């Protein structure tokens, strides 16, 4: 079987049919790029959706039973949160309010949705970065911090906030007569796929702006006492509060949010569909080139069969060809994806970056795609019939 390894028929045939091979490599590279972009968008979606969850100032979260996502309005009766305070192992309970009003761009006068969070500025439920000690100033009415990493769609808010206070208008319906808020500083969080920015206010300002009752926070954040075991405390809090509320660890909350975006929104399906389309496109390109090579070499394969090469030899050659195409095409797909990620990150403020495990997963998908192509193309090998060689 020197034709498998010492004189590798697979690579020699790919080189001999260079035009078809280059065509397949380009096609598979595009398919790989498509898969990477979908994977990148998925990362951007998930990572941005849970940015706030990661900076929650606690280990457990108490939410309404039906809580699915922080972007979906929900209200936890506040008494539940306070009742949890007496559970052993609980050090503190803080409250977080969330809403999605419209922020009016002072330049264009157009209003766009923004994520609005309300906290107690003296006992914040989150640990925002980059506040420059401005958090406590939120106790003053109608004061707000604006996310420095927000997209520019809200106008030059960040630039103006850097040089002093700036006024903005937040309202449920973009009402131009809505009361003004004063942005007194910045913090760092980052936009999500659906929201271009975030505003942080005190719970009282939040109530004023949204009308959402203060006894209905979005969820309560439980900080544990030193040495307390989160799973144990979680079980005890759940037992104390009953089945009417949901007690989650921070990791479970993050998983729940990702699940919401993945399974309960069209965007999750669209991204999966994109991955599937990438797989299908690559499969077709690899299949085409293998078909073409088999078609051009049927008599030669038949000769090899007459001298004793078994059927599995040809399957292995096809697998080798498919693997070579998939592996080589993976590299330009990866490099191009990295360049496009950098460009997209600059433009959207979303984190699309890849980890090694993600690249390895795409490579595995590409190799599976190539194997499936090879198996489909292998049906054509039945045409390599030694009797057909005779005149």
């Amino acid at each position, binding site marked *: *079987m*020197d*034709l498998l390894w*010492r*004189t590798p*028929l697979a690579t*020699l*045939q790919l*080189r*001999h*049919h260079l035009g078809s091979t280059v065509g397949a490599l380009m096609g598979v590279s595009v398919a790989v790029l498509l898969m990477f972009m979908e994977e990148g968008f998925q990362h951007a979606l998930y990572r941005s959706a849970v940015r706030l969850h990661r900076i929650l100032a606690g280990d457990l979260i108490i939410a309404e039973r039906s809580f699915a996502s922080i972007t979906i309005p929900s209200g936890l009766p506040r008494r539940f949160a306070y009742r949890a305070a007496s559970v052993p192992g609980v050090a503190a309970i803080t409250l977080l309010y969330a809403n999605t009003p419209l922020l009016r761009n002072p330049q264009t006068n157009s209003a766009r949705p923004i994520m609005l969070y309300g906290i107690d500025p003296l006992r914040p439920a989150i640990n925002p970065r980059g506040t420059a000690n401005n958090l406590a100033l939120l106790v003053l009415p109608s004061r707000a911090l604006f996310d420095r990493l927000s997209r520019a769609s809200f106008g030059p808010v960040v630039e103006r906030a850097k040089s002093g206070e700036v006024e903005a208008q937040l309202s449920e319906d973009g009402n131009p007569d809505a009361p003004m808020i004063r942005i007194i500083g910045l913090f760092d969080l980052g936009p999500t796929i659906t929201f271009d920015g975030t505003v942080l206010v005190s719970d009282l300002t939040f109530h004023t702006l949204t009308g959402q009752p203060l006894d209905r926070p979005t969820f309560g954040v439980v900080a544990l006492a030193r040495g307390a075991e989160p799973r144990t405390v979680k079980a005890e809090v759940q037992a104390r509060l009953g089945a009417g509320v949901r007690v989650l660890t921070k990791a479970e909350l993050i998983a729940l949010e990702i699940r919401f975006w993945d399974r309960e929104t069209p965007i999750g399906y669209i991204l999966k569909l994109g991955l599937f389309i990438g797989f299908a496109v690559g499969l077709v390109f690899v299949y085409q080139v293998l078909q073409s090579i088999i078609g051009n*070499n049927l*008599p*030669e394969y*038949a*000769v*090899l069969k*007459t*001298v*004793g090469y078994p059927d599995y030899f040809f399957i292995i050659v096809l697998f080798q060809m498919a693997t070579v195409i998939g592996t080589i095409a993976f590299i330009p797909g990866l490099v191009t994806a990295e360049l496009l990620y950098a460009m997209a990150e600059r433009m959207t403020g979303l984190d699309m970056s890849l980890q090694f495990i993600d690249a390895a997963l795409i490579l595995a998908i590409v190799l599976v795609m190539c194997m499936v192509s090879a198996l489909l193309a292998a049906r054509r090998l039945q045409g390599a019939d*030694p*009797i057909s*060689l*005779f*005149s």
Partner: protein
Amino acid sequence: MEARTRLVTARELSYRYGTAETGRNVLHNIALDIRAGEVVLLTGPSGSGKTTLLTLIGSLRQPQQGTLQVLGVDLLRASPGQLRQLRQDIRFVYQRHNLLHSLTVLQNVTACMPNTPASGRAANRQRAIEMLDHLGLIEKIHEKPEQLSGGQQQRVAVARALVSSPALLLADEPTASLDREAGQRVARAMSDVGRQLGCAVLISTHDERIFHVADRRLHIEDGVIAEHSLQGP
């Protein structure tokens, strides 16, 4: 001893394509013997059954009726394992050379040699080079088939067939697409090397220009075979 001398023995061998009602008999009660070292021509008009007989002897078709012994194996009763083993001792040359274009001449020849451990590879390679040298192709061993003339390509196919010293070489119109000189070189190569190796060579052909390389000629017409003179049609 007899079985070794007679490499191919057929008696009352018949073959039919299609069903009993609509089919057609192509071979009728064929009887023939081919001995080691012999070069035998198989002639006859198109559709006379030459190729069917060749593929039966080459164990590529299952005989239907009569007896056919090839290299001591009864093809009517042989197991798949016996057939696989038998095919190791049979090689073919076709009208088209069917060389792998992605391989060099030398690689095409060594690809059809038996599998050997690493230590035997050098010997295989050396043997392939000697065979190509013998057939006047030593200058071409690192070239690709498309760089060779039709006659040279067919001689590579002969080298590929004979390099593993088969007991039986079956050739199907090997000179049909070659000019006179190239055709004669190919035919001579098969007969000379075949005789040197003690290999029986059976050549199915219409080409009268190569009759002189053979020891005898079998003519087949309407599925019936008979010995014919080497002097003419």
